[in-house]
């Protein structure tokens, strides 16, 4: 069970944070189909930064001092870099969508094509193969937090929940949850959030009250880019062994599904991310066959193919859309370029 919770969280966290990225962009009025592309770019930037730090000998030094806190600090630094570069990458979308009033679907698609191409081009130049690995060690050896680090004994029983949340976990999970909460509050309980949402509902009315729509929409897309870039790096660290290969296995699109499933609301999105993360986890647990899996085997015995679990999130989203399209809370002005003269 502890294994199941832990694995589910590993899949759910990137989904959750990237879906929040989608919310920020769409509620400010810009459709962001480029989540996948930004994730790919963010993952690449983060991994490159980690490699740079490794090359400078920081990691080895921290490991020699047995200072795991320092390593976690480096991880946070890499997350920041991934967020910054994701933000910069999303500027391309913001510029096309907001300044040039371009078609946002095509713009997003272009970024989705650009990111893997650019990343693979650079990865191949850097490593002569299609995957950029860490210079030394793997993701778990550097970043995984074990209960022994937190002062528990190696064999001490810390209960099921303790095992799930304190042993063999990544700090990124908790950082993402905190960021998710803070940004959700920002969106619903602050003036900035209200203004942002207003720009996605009725930008002309917002403008008439003195809100700078262009600025707010830029803020929405840039926050979105930062979150998606960070989510991409978190995905790389927790599931792809901190490597970059121009691919995040469709998580960007799955996050889009989560966002729609959650009706553009943070709390629902968190629930949707957990549900879809669970499906992902069950689908993956077949192939990994971890010994720790009590509960997993019973699922395997039911005999449903792992393909079903992989397929379900998309199917559910489609069904939800079919039945709730009347009640959908999609931002009213999303996808429509802001035009001052249009009332």
């Amino acid at each position, binding site marked *: 069970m502890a294994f199941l919770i832990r694995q589910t969280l590993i899949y759910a966290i990137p989904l959750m944070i990237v879906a929040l990225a989608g919310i920020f962009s769409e509620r400010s009025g810009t459709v962001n189909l480029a989540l996948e592309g930004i994730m790919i770019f963010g993952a690449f930037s983060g991994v490159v930064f980690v490699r740079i730090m490794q090359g400078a000998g920081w990691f080895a030094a921290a490991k020699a001092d047995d200072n795991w806190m320092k390593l976690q600090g480096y991880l946070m630094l890499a997350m920041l870099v991934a967020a910054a570069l994701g933000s910069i990458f999303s500027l391309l979308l913001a510029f096309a969508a907001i300044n040039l*009033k371009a078609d946002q679907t*095509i713009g997003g698609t272009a970024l989705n094509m650009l990111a893997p191409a650019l990343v693979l081009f650079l990865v191949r130049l850097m490593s002569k193969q299609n995957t950029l690995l860490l210079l030394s060690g793997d993701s778990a050896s550097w970043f995984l937090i074990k209960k022994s680090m937190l002062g528990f004994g190696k064999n001490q029983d810390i209960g099921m929940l303790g095992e799930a949340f304190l042993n063999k976990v990544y700090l990124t999970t908790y950082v993402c949850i905190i960021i998710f909460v803070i940004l959700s509050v920002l969106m619903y309980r602050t003036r900035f959030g209200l203004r942002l949402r207003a720009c996605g509902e009725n930008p002309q009315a917002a403008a008439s009250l003195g809100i700078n729509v262009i600025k707010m929409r830029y803020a929405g897309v840039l926050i979105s880019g930062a979150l998606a870039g960070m989510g991409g790096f978190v995905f790389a660290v927790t599931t792809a062994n901190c490597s970059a290969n121009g691919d995040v296995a469709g998580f960007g699109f799955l996050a889009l599904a989560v966002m729609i499933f959650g009706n553009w609301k943070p709390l629902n999105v968190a629930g949707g991310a957990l549900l879809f993360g669970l499906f992902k986890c069950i689908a993956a647990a077949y192939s990994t066959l971890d010994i720790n899996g009590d509960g997993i085997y019973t699922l395997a015995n039911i005999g449903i193919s792992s393909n079903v679990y992989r397929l379900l999130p998309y199917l559910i989203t489609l069904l939800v859309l079919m039945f709730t399209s009347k009640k959908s809370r999609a931002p009213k002005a999303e996808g*429509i370029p802001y035009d001052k003269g249009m009332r």
Partner: protein
Amino acid sequence: MEKGRLTQRDGFKTLVASLISIVIGLLAGAVVILIVGLINPSISLAGAIEGIKIVLFGVFSTGRNASGALSFGFNPVNMGNLFFRATPLILTGLSVAIANKTGLFNIGAPGQYLAGTCASLFLALSIPSSKMAPGLIWLIALLGGMIAGALWGSIPGMLKALLNMNEVIACIMTNWIAANLVTWIFDMSDLKNTAEGTKTGYIYKTSYNGVQTPKFGLDKIFRGSQINGGIIVAAILCVVMYIVIEKTTFGYELKACGANRHAAKYAGIHDKRDIILSMAIAGAMAGAAGSLYYLSGNTEFFWSTYQSLPSEGFTGIAVALLAVNNPVGTIFAGMFMSMLNISGMQLTYLTAYNEYITDVIIAVIVYLSAFSLIIRMLISGRKKIERSKVTGEPIVPAAAAAAPAPTADAAPAAQPAAGSPAKDKED
């Protein structure tokens, strides 16, 4: 259309806009190559310039001569492969273009491509060629692939027409459902290549069953290449679609739906039926793309495709944008994309760079297409352009992601119906 000076005609301007997109795309690629060459100590400036040369003229590359310099000339293998690889790109481009004519953004081409591939491979490999003529099996497989693609494409079409769901989101979901479904189907099938031990990740080539696209002697002209008759089928489909869209009442109805669904309905056009049919035809074309690529007999399908979608589908978007949704134009746009593909491979063989730079170029072209209107405005030297013209663009569906796109509110009422004089009078 008014016959003004050549430079004032709409067609001319769109052509120039496309060419400008291509030039800027290639320039961007060249700049990236140059920057990487300057930063990377293992690549000299001469190496970077060689890279740029290959990107531009890769099709004509014949390797390196005795002194180590790049040599250029007619290369039958490259030329033949250009046609071979253009086949699926032309057809996915055609697919996206047809949907765009009806105001739908068919980002579902990858899924329809997979559906077509899956059906074709099943038919081509499981009908025993001892009982039926291979030519007939080939035809059945192609038609089966097209039907599968059409069915898959009609799902988002139906959701759009009947429930007013945004087709972009519906297409994205059906794409990934297709990717997982195809993996599942092939996982259960016995078509996995177990004859060659290392290739169980792939499905048998259709030539295992003696089924392959006839070559019509093309392989005699382009010796050593993979060319086959598929390119001819693709070209015929493009011309047929051009006639259907531009010269028939049905095509006119489709375009009318694209320009303004509500006006079309008011004029007595079955808008729902036409939207579904448009997506079905688009799906059939994308299905044919997958069919023809894998029925060639020399390509193997990697069946565990659940983690990624076939890039041909997304390149189809680039092809359609570059061809400005003209069905015949997709032939040339598809060949251009295919040429970039070949150049990319030459780049990997001959220089320190790799083929992905050509994908960067394609992405830049798509990015520019997103605001092709601005480029067209710059050409005609016009500062302002009427709102109606802006939203009347066929490539620009009101792309409110997901759910009940409030079409009536989103699309300004001033949209001219397709074919109405409003657009042509512009100049």
